[in-house]
């Protein structure tokens, strides 16, 4: 009935879109057709190029090559205002709202119609009443946006787009911040929009959503559209496989693990953000000596927050982090957590793991600078710092092996080796590692993997968080999958990737 667009001009055509950011080929010759009056899902892992593609359509970036057609007409979209004028609206993952403004003021911003905003506000008020009735988009027009719950803020974003005459609405990971009820409501709204003839492009990594509401789905992987399917004629298994792809296992040599006693025991851990959303939701698991536990998941599903709580950067809202028999969650202080024997390779090496303007030697002591071995009392003995840096840089083959070079001048792989060296050489009982090989060249990846496994073989415990499924599968002795702040299930090493993909997309939930 709807969504097929048979015989109709497509709402949007993207033809041969190509985009590079420096050395990253974000979109490779992407061709995509979005039918009028349909809900078109775009699915893919992190970094598959979904958001870049949509940002090009919305005029935020420019394609290096390719053509965009709106209703059959070739167009040039140089800025967001061009896109808006062509009837394209976008709901960004991070809302573009002015928080102290009322709903009405947010809606008219950029579409005031004249020098005075009075008439536009009146028009918007009338329009909002109509839209509320048509699409279940009820929001108090005079409410202050910053005081609204996230679900309503998102409605304001949709209203903004519709008020500006959007015929095609792009939603980028719209349910990431929503409760299940709010998400269901959103899907009803999207369904109504389709019935009224609007076109919806839904970017998501959640298969459940794709199956629930889309008419057609395109799968992106590594910058390419690898398949487009009628939703009715596909299933979650096929999509998961298309999304993850057939990867070769990375070359990692490791024997079976010989787990010993439990080192880390996380019990019913919950962490809520300022808005009260549980980003880590009642998580329980343990890590034993001599094993690597991997946490898989699409980024933004609570892994970062989990690492922050375990490493003491943030305090849990409830639950316990038992490390060697002691609750370290209540310490809420990375310095004390380190002193207990826990080392942490942070996910974000540029912003957390290194101080770019410091030289390598000063980065080699970051977090461990209180050690008496580096200088008695208040003193910091430069010679000892440099000697440690030299030794670690040599052992971990950091190039160039210059302790006086600013850390920002090293390549990504060597920066990461510097951090790995620092944390492993602190001789921890537990190493927690976030995204150890993000943006790292292949040689360094192999080396970093080798060192982590070596640490395991020495009888130490490792907790590994990565969005790279290959990495998780090749490194871990046990695999946990996180989705929406929860652990979806546990699998053994070399688990079937399709199955993991389903868990990552929030489809199947084990009785854990």
């Amino acid at each position, binding site marked *: 009935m709807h969504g097929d667009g048979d015989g109709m001009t497509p709402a949007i055509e993207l033809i041969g879109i190509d985009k590079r950011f420096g050395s990253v080929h974000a979109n490779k010759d992407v061709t995509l057709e979005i039918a009028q009056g349909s809900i078109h899902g775009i699915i893919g892992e992190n970094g598959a190029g979904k958001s870049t593609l949509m940002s090009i359509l919305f005029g935020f970036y420019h394609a290096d090559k390719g053509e965009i057609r709106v209703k059959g007409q070739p167009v040039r979209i140089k800025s*967001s205002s061009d896109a808006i004028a062509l009837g394209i609206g976008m709901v960004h993952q991070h809302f573009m709202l002015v928080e102290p403004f009322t709903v009405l003021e947010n809606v008219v*911003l950029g579409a005031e119609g004249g*020098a005075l905003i009075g008439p536009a506000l009146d028009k918007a008020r009338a329009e909002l009443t109509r839209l509320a009735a048509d699409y279940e988009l009820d929001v108090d027009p005079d409410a202050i946006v910053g005081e609204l719950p996230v679900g309503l803020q998102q409605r304001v974003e949709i209203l903004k787009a519709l008020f500006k005459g959007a015929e095609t609405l792009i939603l980028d990971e719209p349910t990431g911040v929503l409760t299940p009820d709010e998400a269901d409501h959103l899907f009803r709204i999207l369904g109504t929009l389709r019935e009224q003839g609007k076109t919806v492009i839904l970017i998501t990594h959640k298969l459940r959503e794709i199956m629930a509401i889309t008419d057609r789905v395109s799968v992106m992987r590594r910058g390419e559209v690898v398949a487009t399917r009628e939703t009715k004629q596909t299933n979650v298994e096929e999509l998961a496989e298309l999304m993850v792809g057939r990867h070769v296992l990375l070359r990692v040599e490791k024997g079976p693990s010989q787990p010993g006693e439990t080192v880390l025991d996380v019990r019913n851990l919950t962490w809520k953000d300022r808005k009260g959303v549980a980003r880590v939701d009642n998580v329980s698991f343990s890590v034993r000596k001599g094993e690597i536990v991997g946490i898989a998941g699409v980024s933004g599903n609570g892994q970062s927050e989990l690492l922050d709580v375990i490493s003491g950067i943030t305090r849990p809202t409830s639950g316990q982090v038992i490390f060697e028999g002691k609750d370290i969650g209540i310490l809420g202080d990375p310095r004390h957590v380190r002193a207990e024997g826990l080392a942490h390779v942070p996910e974000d090496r540029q912003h957390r793991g290194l101080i770019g303007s410091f030289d390598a030697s000063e980065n080699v002591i970051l977090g461990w600078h209180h050690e008496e071995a580096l200088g008695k009392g208040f003193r910091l003995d430069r010679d000892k710092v440099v000697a440690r840096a030299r030794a670690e840089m040599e052992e971990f083959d950091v190039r160039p092996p210059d302790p006086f070079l600013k850390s920002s001048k090293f390549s990504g792989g060597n920066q990461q080796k510097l951090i790995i060296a620092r944390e492993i050489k602190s001789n921890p009982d537990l190493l927690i590692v976030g995204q150890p090989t993000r943006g790292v060249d292949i040689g360094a990846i192999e080396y970093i993997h080798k060192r982590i496994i070596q640490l395991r073989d020495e009888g130490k415990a490792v907790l590994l968080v990565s969005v790279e499924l290959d990495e998780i599968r090749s490194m871990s002795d046990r695999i946990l999958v996180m989705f929406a702040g929860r652990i979806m299930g546990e699998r053994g090493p070399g688990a079937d990737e399709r199955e993991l993909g389903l868990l990552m997309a929030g489809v199947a939930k084990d009785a854990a």
Partner: protein
Amino acid sequence: MDLYVELLASTIRMSVPLILACLAGLWSERAGIVDIGLEGKMLIAAFVAASASAVYGSAWIGLILAIAASVSFALVHGYASINQRGNQVVSGVAINMLAAGLAVVLGNEWFREGGRTPALPPEGRFMPFEFPSLDDIPIIGPLERVFLSHSILAYAAIALVPLTAWALARTRFGLRLRAVGENPHAVDTAGISVAALRYRAVIIAGVLCGLSGAYISTSLSSSFVRDMTAGGGFMALAALIFANWRAYPALGACLLFGFLQAVGNFTQGASVGGVQIPVQFINMLPYVLTVVLLAGFIGKSVPPKASGIPYTKDR
């Protein structure tokens, strides 16, 4: 009785430059550009107004050139803050010093009076209105002296308060300007130029500081002397914080601070319940109140969220 009339009239006179500078800060900071350089722009404007008026014999020419000078300083600040994404506080400090130095150096060269400008004749000044016929009428006379004995610039300053409030709340420009100070990304994705909006805000701040400086040297006084603004720009900044970046409260805060200045000028201190309060405590009161407010002990003052942060598109 006469003393109180004079005190109230003086309150208004002292408040006017604060109001203008405070509104200047309001326009700039609501757009997300922190302006520590109000003082400098006022000072250079005061100097140029007095100099030009002395040379050309017209207060109006003085005013126009004062505005031009202040706006050019504002544009330097805008260039550093918007195009170069420099530190806005550092830029403001530089502008204050530059203005303080240039005013004296140029004044000394042009008039050879150690930085002072020649005394202006009445036609070179914005003179207060006078209604001598009303003076002796009870009630009306004192009211006339409090409210009607000011120059045109004072009334302009007062009128600019509702104008500013209205423009910010009701016009397209005001809406976009407020938005750019809170979330420039929202403005950018709505297809509006962030830089153009901020430049306009910075220029308005320049014009208002120009008015403020001209008022000080050609209406309140009849010549320019070094450091004439005496921290007025910073007091305006304090008033702005006190007013929580809103126009009508800004008027109230400036009147309060102006009143304290008037009291300080009138007496060597005031006496409350028989206890003598030294004038220095009256002088520091605006700043103490602002710090207490900033510390969140009375009410809460929240600056525009994006103020002081240079805008860059993500990635």
